């Protein structure tokens, strides 16, 4: 079993403190969800765990099986077992999707033991079929000209091929119609097992109907303010975030409160 532990994490972007002491513990075999209103630091959390250079960690630690991820470069974190399905995956012309995923897998293997192309393609095509992706997408340039839904599926495809210990899924449900949401959920559920843990970041309960979490965390104002089971997500869906905030006596302004 592996363990991802976030302790007292403070993160700033452009001098402004967004995370104000986040604590979380995640084990392989578990799926956690983080919910929270807009502008509360959910994406900041995922990006700073991965090491996006735009974010500065000012305090706290993130460890994977005791090793401090914050001391590692982005690629080292990935090879240590971390994966981030990004909200806005970059488009990179000139390198095909298949080449890229093959390269990512080989980056985890010894130089003289690359995954044979045939074995790789067999697995890639199986997973693409499982995600209802057209096989020709493997030969297109990485995310280049992909629709929003195609990019999300492609993130899940990469996760299935790379098989990380822990995946952080940053709003993997945003911009998806119900059919695509079901496909993406199917991918996550397929990964579910004793060697895989996930942290799903979402605004909405809907994703959690398809991927039922073991633990639900609620973030507000740069902190985790509540924890519970799947029923907590259902309650938020009916009552909204402001009710929970008021119950907890928090003085936090919700970004979209007046909308």
């Amino acid at each position, binding site marked *: 079993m592996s363990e991802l532990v976030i302790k007292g994490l403070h993160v700033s972007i452009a001098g402004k403190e967004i995370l104000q002491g986040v604590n979380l513990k995640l084990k392989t075999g578990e799926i956690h969800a983080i919910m929270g209103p807009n502008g509360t630091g959910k994406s900041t959390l995922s990006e700073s765990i*991965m*090491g*996006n*250079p*735009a974010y500065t960690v000012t305090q706290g630690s993130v460890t994977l099986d005791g090793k401090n991820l914050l001391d590692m*470069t*982005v*690629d080292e*974190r*990935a*090879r240590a077992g971390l*994966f*981030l399905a*990004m909200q806005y*995956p*970059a*488009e*990179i*012309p*000139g*390198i095909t999707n298949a080449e*890229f*995923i093959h*390269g*990512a897998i080989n*980056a*985890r293997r010894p130089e003289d033991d690359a995954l044979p192309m045939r074995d790789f393609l067999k697995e890639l095509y199986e997973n693409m079929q499982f995600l209802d992706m057209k096989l020709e997408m493997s030969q297109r*340039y990485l995310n280049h000209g992909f629709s929003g839904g195609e990019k999300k599926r492609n993130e899940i495809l*990469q996760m299935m091929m*790379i098989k990380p210990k822990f995946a952080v899924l940053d709003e993997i449900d945003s911009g998806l119609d119900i059919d695509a949401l079901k496909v993406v959920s199917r991918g996550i559920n397929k990964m579910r097992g004793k060697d895989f843990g996930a942290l799903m970041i979402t605004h909405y309960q809907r994703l959690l109907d398809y991927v039922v979490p073991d633990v639900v965390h609620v973030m507000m104002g740069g902190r985790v303010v509540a924890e519970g089971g799947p029923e907590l997500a259902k309650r938020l869906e009916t009552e909204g975030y402001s009710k929970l905030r008021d119950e907890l006596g928090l003085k936090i302004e919700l970004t979209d409160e007046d909308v």
Partner: protein
Amino acid sequence: MEEALWFKGIQAKAAALAPTLKRPVFDKIDSRDWDLELGARDQTDPELAIPPEFAHQQLLQVGSLTRSWNLREDLRAQGVIVCDWAEALEKHGDLLQKYFGQAVPIDENRLTAEHAASINNGILVYVPKNVAVKEPITVAYLQDASKKQDFVEHVLLIADVNSSVSYMESLATIGAEANTASIVVEVIARAGSQVKYAGIDRLGQKTTAYIKRVAKISQDAKVDWALGMLSDGKILGDFDSNLIGTGSKADMNIIAITIGDQIQGLNTVVNNYGRKSVGHILQHGVILQRSSLIFDGIGHVMKGAKGADAQQENRVLMLSRAARGDANPILLIDDNDVFAGHAASVGRVDEQQLYYLMSRGIPKKTAERLVIRGFLGPVLTRVPSADVRQRLFAMVERKLIDGQDME
């Protein structure tokens, strides 16, 4: 050599002219103190060891010596000529006398005159009328920098009426002595001919070079250039397509990479003289560390070139804060009835692209090369021959790795 007296005359004339002429101008590059003067005595080592990658060329020249050369029998039977400069002077004086200096006049500038005065080896390629050479002609010119000496190489490639030929040249340096190189390539594409010219340069770090490649293109003829400017020294490159005939075409696809503290200036020019002539320039450059790369793209449509088309795209990508680069498109239009367009950009590597690639476990240097590959992709895909594309790609990768290893 009795036959070469006329040529000795030209060389003497060039030597006399040189001091009266000016060096060519390269925008934003101060090359005044570069050692481009020729005059270091040739003393090519006939035993110099050749890197194995150059072993399988049809023609291999090292410094002033021709080391090996095998023209296939079927080409010989069709009247195709591929020979070194000495043999060209001896046996094909008529061709040389007719075409030498047609694309690059000896008095164009001081460096072309000095070049003509000092040629110490070269090659003549002649493809007769209506002959199609199917397999590419591959040649390598290796500079012997094991000693102090100049490297002065002249290429004259003539595609006669309605012929077609594909030619691939590699330039490289053996040894690490500081030397001057002067390379002039003349391509004569006669009416209806098709020439695919690929040049991949990897001259050494201590080499200072003037490289001039010019095509003179007649009616309905087409020249496709694929150039990899991957040398490591100080380089001035001057590439021109002169579209003389009606319906003549030139496609100039150029990739340049600079590393360390090298400086490379490239002037790429298309001159549209002919009606309905079409000239496209596509050049992408990548600049690492403290190096400099300046691209000038010049499209000049002359008066009377009705219906001419002049397009160009010049882009550079910088990988470090200390890199210096520029991409200047210049369009000079002297006729009304033309199509012309240009695009240019100078940018830095996209941090979010690197982050994305690294987040999948790909190390930073590999990620950088992938982003660069994406940037160079549009030029690579325009290179018509798969062989050239592969070789260019491999050489780009190698130069990038060498550059990254300097960090």
